[in-house]
């Protein structure tokens, strides 16, 4: 039978606030175990949580960026379950009045735009970190509560995705939105961004959703895709054999690339949600909402479309530039100085990005500033230096941070446009390469390239290559 795979994703993103959601403990990653804890995040009796405004506003910002309706009245609830990483035996989350509901996000799937609906966006607290000792036969686990209470944003999609390409695009697009809105660092290797997939199959052409299976422990985007492929295959085999799919939670085993049924949590699925009496509700008025809305920058999807339309960049170029907000900002900063989109785009996505990667730096921390890149591009466009020489100037700029004009002056790199001089060099080259000239006259076209190369070499790359070409053709006959 032919099946259609139906996927919904739950995304957890740790918000990059300085302090935790309900206490003033630091959220800094990588600190000594249990050094960033207090009675509130340790769940001591009699303590009172107080909400971090920055965290709440970051959550609202994302809900708005994902086109959600903001609940004018939101509240927090206790989600009860017993687990060693949860000191209070309940997690403060939202269940009855989520911050944002009924949103959507546009994704690009191989050139086609698809709308994925967002069921809700809500705020909750992170649990502690469990460490399982490597020693064989160890009968204990270790807990570090530094992470307990870090603000965590949960974004729940509707089961609107139908292929790995769609899931991939959803994850990438959402990640970029979280980065653009500057609410999370999205470091998957540090657990700041995590995905859980719920997957079901249905016979192609039918409407009714099959029983869904939740996959947890997907530690990278690659695991999400692999886990999804594995699960779709597993379910198809079961259905083909006439078996039913059990509604269950499965854990992805990254090493063996397979999933296994998760036992322990199943019996604890009864979360007994009830309103958190220690926190007061939050009322959101229009004024506050529009204040937060005004802090949302143009989002990557829209920005990419604009770069393609306004600056006539290719899909590839526009995607590269909008991959990170700093890149796109750098590009637009350059454009505010001079109107040469294609040239800036090339320098940024090829040269600057390469240098930034080599040095593990943010593009803004490189010694070349937008003003200097703009100046470099201008010198090329005005014919002061050739593009070959420009690469040399660029290398010098990246090492010293000097202005291009200064480097050109110091190293005497100005392009030679003096026809008389260029002709004298050409004559010299023709005289010393009679065979090549002969070949060219016999119709061997690439002999010309050799001669141009010789002239460029003689002038240390400074001769205007266009002029060299013209004059050479004139000399040896076209």
């Amino acid at each position, binding site marked *: 039978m032919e099946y259609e795979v139906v996927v919904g994703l739950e995304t957890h993103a740790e918000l990059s606030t300085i*302090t935790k959601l309900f206490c003033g403990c630091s959220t800094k990653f990588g600190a000594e175990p*249990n050094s960033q804890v207090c009675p509130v995040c340790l769940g001591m009796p009699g303590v009172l949580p*107080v909400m*971090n*405004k920055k965290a709440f506003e970051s959550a609202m910002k994302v809900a708005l960026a994902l086109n959600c309706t903001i609940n004018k009245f939101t509240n927090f609830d206790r989600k009860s379950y017993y687990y*060693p990483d949860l000191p209070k035996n309940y997690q403060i989350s939202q269940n009855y009045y989520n911050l944002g509901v009924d949103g959507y996000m546009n994704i690009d799937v191989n050139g086609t735009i698809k709308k994925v609906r967002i069921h809700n966006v809500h705020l909750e607290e992170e649990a502690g970190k469990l460490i399982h000792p490597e020693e064989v036969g160890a009968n204990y686990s*270790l807990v570090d509560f530094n992470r307990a209470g870090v603000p965590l944003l949960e974004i729940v999609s509707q089961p609107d995705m139908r292929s790995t390409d769609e899931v991939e695009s959803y994850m990438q697009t959402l990640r970029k939105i979280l980065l653009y809105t500057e609410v999370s660092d999205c470091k998957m290797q540090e657990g700041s961004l995590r995905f859980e997939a719920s997957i079901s199959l249905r016979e192609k052409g039918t409407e009714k959703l099959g029983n869904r299976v939740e996959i947890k422990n997907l530690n990278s985007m690659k695991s999400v895709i692999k886990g999804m492929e594995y699960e779709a295959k597993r379910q198809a085999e079961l259905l083909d054999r006439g078996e039913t799919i059990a509604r269950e939670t499965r854990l992805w085993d990254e090493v063996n690339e397979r999933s296994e049924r998760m036992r322990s949590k199943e*019996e604890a699925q*009864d979360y007994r949600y009830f309103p958190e009496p220690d926190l007061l509700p939050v009322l959101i008025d229009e004024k506050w909402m529009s204040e937060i809305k005004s802090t949302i920058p143009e989002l990557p999807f829209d920005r990419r479309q604009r770069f393609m339309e306004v600056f006539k960049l290719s899909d590839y170029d526009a995607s590269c530039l909008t991959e990170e907000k700093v890149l796109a900002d750098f590009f637009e900063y350059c454009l505010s100085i001079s109107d040469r989109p294609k040239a800036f785009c090339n320098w940024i996505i090829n040269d600057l990005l390469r240098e930034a990667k080599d040095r593990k730096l943010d593009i803004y921390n490189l010694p070349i500033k937008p003003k200097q890149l703009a100046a470099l591009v201008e010198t090329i466009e005005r014919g002061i230096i050739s593009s070959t020489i420009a690469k040399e100037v660029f290398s010098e700029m990246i090492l010293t941070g000097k202005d291009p004009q200064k480097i050109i002056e110091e190293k005497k790199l100005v392009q030679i446009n003096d026809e008389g001089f260029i002709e004298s060099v050409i004559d010299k080259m023709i005289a010393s390469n009679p065979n090549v000239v002969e070949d060219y006259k016999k119709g061997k076209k690439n002999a010309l390239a050799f001669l141009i190369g010789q002239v460029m070499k003689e002038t240390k790359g400074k001769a205007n290559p266009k002029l060299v070409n013209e004059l050479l053709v004139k000399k040896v006959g076209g």
Partner: protein
Amino acid sequence: MDKTVIEYIANLSRIDLSEEEKVFFIHQLSNIISYIEKLNRLNTEDIEPMSHAIISSNVFRGDEPVVSILREEALSNAPSKIGFFVKVPKVID
């Protein structure tokens, strides 16, 4: 309220109950529930569920760090520890 419900609740709460205790709690919880059930006699139609007794809202703190407590102090209530970690029975997943 019967034995199945008591066992279910005990399981959720991660506690073990003896047969005698189960009987005792069936009786005690049944009494509590029938007492609370009096509330069902009230007509609550068209009444918004209340989530708080205090009529106040929007209480926040700034995102400003406060020095946490000492690790020794933080761990002083932990029944078992290794180094600065809390040690707990093995968790499978």
